[in-house]
């Protein structure tokens, strides 16, 4: 009931959300010639580097297969990382706005994600093209992608919700998070397959929502069996993180402006 009221208020500002997203998108790559191409180059460069490493250490022999493998992990991972890093700092970046205009603050978070999401979509389109050239089959399992993205965004936004208050009140946390979040890549199957994890750790590992997201992506693109139970578990975990975060955020959203 309370949430419905809250989101009705947010809906009133939908045009503001659009223009703020546009403003974030435009200022991100202002005065560049390649523009938003820079945003999508990052996952491709990193994937290529890991692919070359994989070839050197004989993890895989086929360049393209390994590249697609790494890219299917890298794209959702970069979306996750950029979302957390950008939206948890949105109070600091928009301090001027927060001190002068009243609107549901969640709009700042969504608008800060919008440009990152566009980057992801372009990268995703390229991944689709590559995988279609390799194997021209369109399978029904592609319909699973929106669900996987939902899990991804739920987790990322939920975590940002929780970080906003400490980041705004104690700036040390900001630097801490900038160092910690990139390390999450190593406890997620971005550059390796989760089949590398064995025994009792696998159970703990599977509670990381990034595992079902990335494994789901790989299953869809390689036309393998979908790990349904894993995805279900990821969905539940991400929904818990999101709604708990939302609760904390809505409780605090207006009390933070004194420290900006």
């Amino acid at each position, binding site marked *: 009931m309370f949430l419905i009221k809250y989101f009705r208020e947010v809906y*009133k*500002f939908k*045009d*503001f959300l*659009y*223009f*703020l997203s*546009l*403003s974030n998108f*435009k*200022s991100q790559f*202002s005065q560049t010639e390649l523009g938003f191409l820079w945003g999508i180059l990052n996952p491709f460069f990193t994937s290529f580097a890991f692919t070359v490493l994989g070839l050197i250490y004989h993890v895989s022999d086929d360049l393209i297969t390994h590249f697609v493998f790494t890219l299917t992990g890298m794209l959702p991972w970069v979306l996750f990382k950029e979302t957390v890093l950008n939206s948890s700092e949105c109070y600091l970046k928009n301090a*001027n*706005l*927060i*001190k*002068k*205009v*009243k*609107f549901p603050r969640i709009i700042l978070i969504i608008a800060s994600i919008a440009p990152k999401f566009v980057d992801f979509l372009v990268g995703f389109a390229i991944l689709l093209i590559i995988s279609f050239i390799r194997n021209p089959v369109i399978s029904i399992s592609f319909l699973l992608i929106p669900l996987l993205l939902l899990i991804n965004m739920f987790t990322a936004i939920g975590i940002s919700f929780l970080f906003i208050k400490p980041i705004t*009140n*104690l700036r040390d946390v900001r630097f801490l998070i900038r160092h910690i979040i990139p390390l999450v890549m190593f406890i997620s199957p971005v550059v390796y397959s989760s089949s590398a994890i064995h025994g009792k750790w696998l159970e703990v590992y599977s509670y990381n929502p990034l595992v079902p997201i990335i494994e789901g992506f790989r299953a869809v693109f390689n036309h393998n069996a979908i790990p349904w139970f894993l995805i279900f578990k990821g969905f539940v975990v991400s929904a818990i993180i999101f709604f708990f975060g939302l609760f904390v955020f809505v409780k605090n959203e*207006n*009390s933070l*402006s*004194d420290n900006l």
Partner: protein
Amino acid sequence: MVTLELQDISKTFFLRKESNGASFFKKIRSFFYSSKTTNLLTKEFIALENINLKFHENEIVGIMGINGAGKSTLANIMYGLTKPSSGCVITHRTIIALFGFGSCFNNELTGRENIYLNGTAYGLSKKQIDNHIDEIIAFSEIEEIDIQLKFYSNGMKARLGFSLVAYIESDILILDEALVGGDAYFQKKCIAKLKEIITRPNKTFIIVSHSESLLKELCTKIIVMKKGKIEFESDPVSAIEFYKKDL
């Protein structure tokens, strides 16, 4: 009819002290416990004390006071940007405050896009702005509306910001330092526009300003503030007299 009522409003800010010898661990500990009780990191600053005010329909209230008197903090609390430390704000009307102008301008967008960004931030819909965009641009008298804002002068930004004010719909409108920037010609134009706006029925206008002549011209009542308290509340002529004597 009362549109906005402030009851016993007080506001205390907790300022961070610079380290002053406290050890790192004590600081960390004080962050986990409530920083208000440990009194290690914070110093109190009382911005407002026991403010009681009532605003009525068709009233144009001016608020004066020297820098640091608490005028903007009061406007902030009325608008709802910050919560008062104690006391409450009672209103059933929509309320919007404009602090300077162009608070959400983005230098990378064009003048036209900035009109949309600002307007929608104050709750207008894109359609409403579409309907008035030509009037807004005409009022601002900016010819290069489709170039990026970073190439604008400060005066041009102020013009662009003010041009929106006539189209913002709210029962209670607070203007804080409304006419900063802009040349004498444009200021005159703004004052004429303000005079037109304040004739709207059943609205309340609150104008925070240092300009005695502006307040004298527009207001029906003036409040003089000093050190977070209301010193004087009366008709414009005697309030300004009091303010001048008090300086």
